[in-house]
């Protein structure tokens, strides 16, 4: 497993058109990143397309990676999430909730542990902020989970949770505020990595 430092060093070499470093970055991160894209798109083929597009970006813009803004894994996740969200909203792929599912997506849908709410709970446990985030209402946590894992915009969250748009926006906002406060309370590093 590569450390963030290893990954940052490899990205610096990718910026110099080092193909071997590029392959190392890909091999080390592709499975995690495909998982992130798949949660949003709920379709393996689309997710793999997004992953490929994302790594095209990585090759061409590794020089723009700035470790003082965000860590290397964060940078990669962000490229993949943005591509997946763009693909989702451009209508090239079915909405997660419309369930035009392949077998793998069906398996995921059947697996309650992988639903957004469960993913959020597991992540919060890993971050050791379950108790603090537990002070949020269930709807607020759910809104945050749908936005992050499913790439839903406010209107879609409102529809999914059967709430007015303004309410959905407020839930997301409170979810984010709470996340920030809980991370700070837990002493999770908030400064950009050095």
């Amino acid at each position, binding site marked *: 497993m590569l450390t963030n430092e290893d990954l940052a060093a490899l990205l610096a070499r990718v910026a110099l*058109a080092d193909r071997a470093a590029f392959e190392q970055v890909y091999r080390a991160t592709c499975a995690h990143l495909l*998982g992130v894209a798949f949660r949003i798109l709920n379709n393996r083929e689309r997710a793999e397309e997004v992953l*490929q597009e994302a790594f095209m970006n990585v090759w061409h813009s590794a020089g723009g990676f700035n470790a003082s803004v*965000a860590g290397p894994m964060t940078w990669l996740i962000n490229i993949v999430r943005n591509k997946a969200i763009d693909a989702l909203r451009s209508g090239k792929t079915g909405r997660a909730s419309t369930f035009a599912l392949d077998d793998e997506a069906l398996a995921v849908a059947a697996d309650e542990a992988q639903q957004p709410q469960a*993913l959020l709970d597991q992540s919060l446990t890993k971050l050791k902020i379950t108790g603090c985030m537990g002070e949020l209402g269930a709807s607020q946590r759910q809104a945050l989970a749908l936005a992050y894992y499913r790439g839903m915009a406010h209107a879609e969250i409102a529809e999914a949770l059967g709430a007015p748009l303004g309410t959905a926006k407020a839930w997301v906002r409170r979810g*984010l505020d709470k996340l920030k406060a809980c991370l700070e309370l837990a002493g999770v590093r908030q400064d950009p990595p050095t």
Partner: protein
Amino acid sequence: MNTLLPERLDRLAREYALGTLAGPARRRFERLLRQTPAAMLAVGAWQERLAGLASAVPAMQPGESVWRGLERRLFISSPRAAPAPARPLQWLWGLLSVRALGGALAGVFLCALLLRLQPGLIGMEPQRDALPESYVGLLTDAEGKPTVLASSKRHGKRMTVKLLQPVVIPAGSVAQLWALPKDGSAAFPVGVVPGSGSATVDLADTSEKLFFNVSRLAVSIEAAPAKTGDAPSGAFILSGHCVKLW
């Protein structure tokens, strides 16, 4: 849109990072992001906060076709994306075998040329047009073809490297630039140069401190970027004089 209040900037940054900022507003914010360091930092901070939420997402191994597609799109259909001659190693071995002959001669010739040009530049041009005080190196390949132009301002801490022709860097290797002191003491690493295009190399100190006693620059192929104290592991594929441009 260019002068946002900090609270509004943070609100947009977190909505962008989360993904809930949608439609034209998302595009507008992306444009702002490219131009505004404060926006970039605000988004980066939110991305770091949110990145923890990805930790529980189950990994999914992509099919090998994804990697093969990347190789095809990046390295085969678009030769300009990276230097990719069909047989890089053979080219390299051919180069290494003749470099001792051609390299030295070519280096001397180009050095003489550069030194003859230099007084003209300084003496004849009006002062305001004079080039800044710099260290300049012109590295040639075994056949004497100018290959790397390296320059750094005398009191600067960055070196600009321009490839005048592509250099083949075997997969898994880097092209390491070395400085060779004129007193014959050990070469020390300067930085890594790309196979084509241009790059900026951050220097460990000012050029004046690093290169004052350096007479030559050279490039070798290394398995990884060299650290202070390392020595070149093999022959130099490029070399040339390092001169003071003032």
